[in-house]
């Protein structure tokens, strides 16, 4: 059973659909007892990272998530809340990944948000089993995680940033595997095998 943490951060229907297509059983919940019993935990998230932290605190989920020992996957803002700090609302986050989250600078001539298909490189570890460096995945975000020792995939948009992170049993992807075609489905399957 997979627990998708329900903390009212955007549309999670696409995550549910992706799991259903893979034939995986899941439950959408903010109940700690249910999450603790799950085999895998997914922390989705679309929207404002400061609000995401607020919603986690409101549900007393911050310490609880940090203490989880089963595989946890944060997606997009769900990954960013697992970093050290974000410029978005100048928010201290869960501090699982040793990355700072900063805003892309439109002054660099970049279109912000970074939206569309970009390639992932320097892939490291089981999350990317049978995924070749240079494959494309789908991104929609205005803030990025810096490179750090926890980086397990990098992407270039003006600068290099962490497109995936890992610390012990915690994984995060800045991109949306649930919207990244067959490559994304393989990444979700890899996560479910952890």
């Amino acid at each position, binding site marked *: 059973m997979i627990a998708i943490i329900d903390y009212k951060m955007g549309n999670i229907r696409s995550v549910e659909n992706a799991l259903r297509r893979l034939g995986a059983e899941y439950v959408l919940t903010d109940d700690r007892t249910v999450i603790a019993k799950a085999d895998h935990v997914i922390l989705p998230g679309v929207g404002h990272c400061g609000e995401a932290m607020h919603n986690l605190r409101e549900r007393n989920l911050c310490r609880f998530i940090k203490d989880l020992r089963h595989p946890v996957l944060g997606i997009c803002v769900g990954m960013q809340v697992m970093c050290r700090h974000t410029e978005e609302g100048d928010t201290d986050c869960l501090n699982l990944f040793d990355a700072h989250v900063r805003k892309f600078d439109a002054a660099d001539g970049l279109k912000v948000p970074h939206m569309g298909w*970009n390639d992932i490189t320097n892939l490291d570890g089981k999350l990317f089993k049978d995924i070749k460096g240079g494959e494309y995945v789908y991104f929609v975000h205005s803030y990025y995680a810096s490179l750090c020792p926890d980086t397990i995939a990098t992407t270039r948009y003006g600068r290099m940033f962490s497109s995936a992170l890992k610390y012990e049993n915690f994984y995060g992807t800045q991109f949306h595997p649930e919207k990244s075609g067959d490559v994304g489905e393989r990444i979700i399957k890899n996560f479910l095998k952890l």
Partner: protein
Amino acid sequence: MLAKRIIPCLDVKDGRTVKGINFEGLADVGDAVELGARYAAEGADELVFLDISASREGRSTFTRLVERIADRINIPFTVGGGISTVDDASRLLDAGADKITVNSAAVANPELISQIAGRYGAQFVVAAIDAKLMDDGIWHVTTHGGSRVSGRELFTWASEVEARGAGEILFTSMNHDGTRNGYPCDTYARLAADLTIPVIASGGAGSVGDIAEVLQEGRADAALAASIFHYGEITVSELKRQLAALGIPVRTSL
């Protein structure tokens, strides 16, 4: 490197896809979910489904179709056609759409863009702009499939929709749509220079060269096309292979 996107567009009426030349002379080209899934498997980067049903029944059929698309398709998709209220947008978001497009209703009520973007974020809102270059040398924004000329001018309106929170602009030249003679690349290049949000080129593709030109000289971030795909003239994968050979960054591996 961020890839240029290729986006097949499917016009939908009563759950079936249709495509007309200049929006007239419709011909049935199949089931929307099956066709969308085929394009996704061929390497389409996104899909657009436009509801051209006029009736209330058609609208509710479309919402159920959007749910089926969301269940089946593993790439982002945009839906549009007749969205005139925040509730319309909410209903399609709940059905599983990643983005919506607003067109005529936003021209009549620009606040609609601010309201939808304010609630669901800029990434959810694609402003579709149909415009016609007229004898006065001005690009006039049109509505209702090009049949009505509004009082708005293309570049001013494009900047306004960006300021109101649209995340992308989908621009169609009514002078070029359906002609298959290519895109007005100078106009696209000016939009790219004026705006910081992505521009999707639509209407006019007759060849791979046309699409390459609008992505390079026109600086468009994406190209949307219908007929060349629907009538099997080129597959999405072959188009992308040829664009890659021209040095255009596209997602070719799957």
